[in-house]
């Protein structure tokens, strides 16, 4: 078959912002279905694949985690620019969840008390330090930073739910919403 007529392979990506990686663990729990998925699509960026830069021309990106620091923010914008469909993947991306618990805490005070002036080791954040990215004033759910096309709630989302969402999105359908299987928060 000439190459042009082959059904184009989809390019999917997953990203890990401010979260615990539990959603990715649940993603891995797709088990054998991962093989089906990779038969139909290439995984072009993911914390579970060693790829340094977020590529262009991605069909679907699942984003785990909330936007908590400068690096998350930058990556979120790059993801948006380079992906056709962006899905908030799991509760931290959808609501901010545990990551956002710090929003009502005096972060600067805690950092100073615990690390900078306390007994902990000094995190080298701030100007000039390239090791730790600067924290944002508030942790935000992904859709408050970039436009998000689909939401997959859950802490973490159940593998069946992930599978249903991913296959639907790759097919150009909305995330199925089966009453009884829905959860929020």
């Amino acid at each position, binding site marked *: 078959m000439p190459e042009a007529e082959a059904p184009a392979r989809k390019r999917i990506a997953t990203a890990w912002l401010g979260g615990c990686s539990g959603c990715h663990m649940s993603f891995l729990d797709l088990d054998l279905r991962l093989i089906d998925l990779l038969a139909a699509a290439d995984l072009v960026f993911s914390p579970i694949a060693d790829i340094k830069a977020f590529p262009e021309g991605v069909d679907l990106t699942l984003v785990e985690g909330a936007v908590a620091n400068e690096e998350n923010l930058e990556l979120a914008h790059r993801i948006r620019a380079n992906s056709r469909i962006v899905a908030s993947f799991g509760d931290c991306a959808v609501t901010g969840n545990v990551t956002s618990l710090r929003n009502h805490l005096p972060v600067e005070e805690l950092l100073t008390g615990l690390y900078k002036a306390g007994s902990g080791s000094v995190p080298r954040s701030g100007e000039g330090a390239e090791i730790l990215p600067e924290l944002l004033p*508030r942790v935000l759910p992904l859709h408050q*930073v970039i436009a998000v096309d689909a939401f997959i709630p859950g802490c973490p989302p159940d593998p069946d739910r992930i599978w249903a969402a991913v296959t639907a999105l790759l097919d150009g359908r909305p995330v199925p919403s089966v009453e009884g299987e829905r959860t929020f928060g």
Partner: protein
Amino acid sequence: MRVADLKTMAEQESAALAVFRARLLVCYSAPCLAAGADAVREALEKEVAGRGLAADVQLVSTGCLGPCSRGPMVTVSQPGQADAVYEKVTPETAVAILDHHASQGPPADGFRMSPENPFLTRQMRVALANCGLIDPERIEDYIARGGYGGLAHALHELDPSEVCFEIKHSGLRGRGGGGYPTGLKWNLVRKAPGAKKYVVANGDEGDPGAYMDRTLMESDPHRVLEGMAIAGYAVGAEQGFIYVRGEYPVAAQRLDKAIKAAERLGLLGSRVLESNFNFRIDIRIGAGAFVCGEETALMASIMGLRGQPVPRPPYPAQKGLWGCPTLINNVETFGNVPDIVSKGSDWYAASGTPKCRGTKVFALCGQVENTGLVEVPMGMTLREIVYDLGGGIPGGRAFKAVQTGGPSGGCIPASHLDTPVDYEGLQQLGSIMGSGGFIVMDDRSCMVDVARFFMEFCLDESCGKCVPCRAGTVQMHRILTRITQGKAGPDDLEKLEALCEMVRDSSLCGLGQAAPNPVLSTLRWFRDEYEAHIHEKRCPAGVCRLTPSEGGER
């Protein structure tokens, strides 16, 4: 006291007043006091005593006359002459005024408000008829001007259904904001089954900038009491409550004094004017919550409960205070009643528009030459109020909008200045008449900022019972703040509008239902200003300081 005694007393009072060569009425309400009315009165007292004029000249401390930005005000009333009104009176000019009127000195015309000033001539004072002309602490002053004549007429010449009919026929509608026909409401309560009924006067007046009811209660308290007593007779109630905003201690004091004076004369209490009608009035003081002006919350507050609204129906007319049928009207509504009964409903119905009879008091404020209280016939256009009575915009600046109805109202642009003022007319423009707030804005007002201000008021005053109002006002305010700071995103306007509609449609009480009005009306007439803030990060009026930012700052 019998009816005949009332007449005798009125005649005696008038005769006693006729003895004076001149009566000097010094306005003693808050704006004039703040401008120095105290010193004016002191100077006059000293002068009168010094010249031995006590028998010829009477000094009276009165309530508010209206042109509040021009105080201290002094009015001179002389037999056979039109009243002379003086503005911005100092102790020195007060002496000159006294000189002219009591001792044939030269006229103090420099300080005299022109009798042709439209602020004076274009008003039609019914509810405010006595304000500024009587001593509110003397019941005799009120009686001398025909006070309690309406009550006497009702008790002795009309039966309760006839009183209700008179009120209905007058076309009077509620002045508390809703505009519900007062006669209909009275009849509902009259017909509602129940051994006990109540009458409530709503003097909570929480709209920022409004002081119509305050002035009425402070300057002519007996008029309100008389209106309530007539209502009590008409609906079959023996107990009335007047709910006074906590920030109005003077009003409460004067009402208290007035109730006692009326009781002493048998005009309130048992066997009023020697009829079989008993009517007592008690004062209840609010504690500073706007929502307690809402009738169901107000009644909860009177009953000693948390001042929170409950869903209607049942309406107060069916189930009000302690489950009994209750008539609740605004203070100004009651203020119109005595004259309707004594002069007849035809007389009242002759003014105003076919759908809105009579007059309305407005608190003119903002960017107009003459701020103050005015009472005008319904149907006067906004333009006449702003330019004739208000004297136009100071400094020759351009008129931009007038905000009516306070936090529940909206902004009306220059293109609709020729709208006649009545309930329906203002509603069609996305505003409301409300209780009478009237804020004029010139080209230096940012309409987004105005909407934000009122939203802040509503979020602060929401009682918190229902989610749309409690949480929706907070989010609307955040979006408005973002817009005025230049931090709004392109989808914020859509989000704001959706919230406005939801909060309007689903809130439990009028506070939440009307809270989006300032936003919706400014969006309707001044959408370009919102867009300039959002897309161009620019405030056309130059009010907002915009510091644009890229996301991440919520």
